[in-house]
């Protein structure tokens, strides 16, 4: 019997990889847990997809419903977004997006956090959820060995710029390579950083912070370094600027 299980769920127009190790748990309820995670990911898609004309988010964006008419999950995402606008001093602002409120920059991570919670509730301790480049990490890849995660190289698509060893945390990277070269910040200033990576407690925050740090560039470290327990790294041209214990 293999000590590893990998499931790829095709959702959101991309892939979520669930990689579970069994050195501290059995496989009891594995199928059930994976099914529940998959259903959760597809639920998130149907509620938050900006591509679906009948999603709650589309109804919000087009003004067919208001923010006080949404369910608890959407309300939670809205309040998390609001908090991230404050923390990042507006560098992350889903309300400043063309076309109306678009929380995609936080939802992917938020979905990964809940997916990790589901697996934990089912008794799994050691797993990685790779939500299309935003990762929730739990436990160890094998006894005593942390997960090694590469960071996408901003200029060389088939390479990584480095790697970090992680346990019980989240990591997210935002890069201009995936957002187009012409992107400007909500304040209209050009973005100079090539990519930004953050590591911390939860994937929703990591997702939003990575986007914010990419937009804010090195000035973003002014607010970023006030966040306890978070590590951040931005790459500008050929220079890497890092802050926090994960990048020591």
């Amino acid at each position: 019997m293999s000590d590893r299980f990998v499931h790829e769920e095709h959702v959101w127009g991309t892939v979520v990889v669930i990689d579970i190790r069994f050195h501290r748990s059995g496989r009891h309820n594995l199928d059930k847990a994976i099914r529940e995670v998959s259903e959760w990911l597809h639920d998130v898609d149907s509620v938050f997809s900006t591509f679906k004309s009948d999603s709650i988010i589309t109804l919000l964006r087009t003004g067919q419903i208001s923010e006080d008419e949404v369910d608890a999950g959407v309300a939670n995402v809205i309040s998390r977004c609001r908090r991230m606008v404050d923390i990042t001093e507006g560098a992350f602002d889903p309300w400043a997006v063309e076309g109306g409120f678009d929380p995609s920059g936080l939802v992917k991570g938020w979905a990964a956090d809940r997916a990790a919670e589901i697996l934990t509730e089912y008794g799994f301790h050691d797993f990685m959820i790779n939500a299309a480049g935003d990762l929730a990490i739990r436990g160890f890849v094998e006894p005593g060995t942390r997960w090694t995660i590469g960071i996408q190289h901003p200029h060389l698509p088939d390479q990584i710029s480095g790697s970090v060893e992680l346990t019980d945390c989240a990591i997210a990277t935002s890069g201009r390579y995936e957002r187009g070269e012409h992107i400007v910040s909500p304040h209209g200033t050009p973005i100079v950083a090539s990519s930004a990576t953050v590591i911390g407690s939860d994937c929703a925050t990591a997702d939003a912070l990575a986007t914010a740090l990419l937009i804010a560039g090195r000035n973003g470290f002014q607010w970023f370094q006030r966040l306890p327990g978070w590590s951040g790294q931005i790459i500008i041209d050929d220079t890497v600027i890092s802050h926090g214990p994960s990048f020591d």
Partner: protein
Amino acid sequence: MKRAPLVTLSTFAGVAGVLLLNPSGAGSPLALAGNTTGTTSGATNTSSTSTGTSPTTSGSNPGATAAATPTATATSGSATGDAVDARYGYVQVKVTAKNGKITDITAVQLPNGDGRSMMISQQVEPMLKEQALAAQSANIQGVSGASYTSYGYQQSLQSALTKLGM
């Protein structure tokens, strides 16, 4: 805050472009040399990038080397895979092989409708290589920031491999 020059990790650069796929979900994984690299000597991992829900075997099989695995099939030629609906449009790839090794993978069809699809298409091929890089490296379990992993690309690739008898 500290600053450092950006350095690509040479350990990984050497094996970029080498894919390990398990086309049918059974049997030995094939070593596939992508179009950027001619060697598979860096690959020592039997981890596959198989799709679906079946369990994947551990990536830490110490005795296995991928370099010379496709012994029986000395396939040469090329085949075009199925056109796979990848939500934003169809993905179809053509595979060229020589002596049982893939020498080239080209995209015959990629989605190119709206701006987002264009952006995704441009990322598809590099991301596939990235995914392969992540999968075949014994030391990396995932890559942060690599978002547009292509399911359709991989499916089309696998159907092309089947046509080639690989």
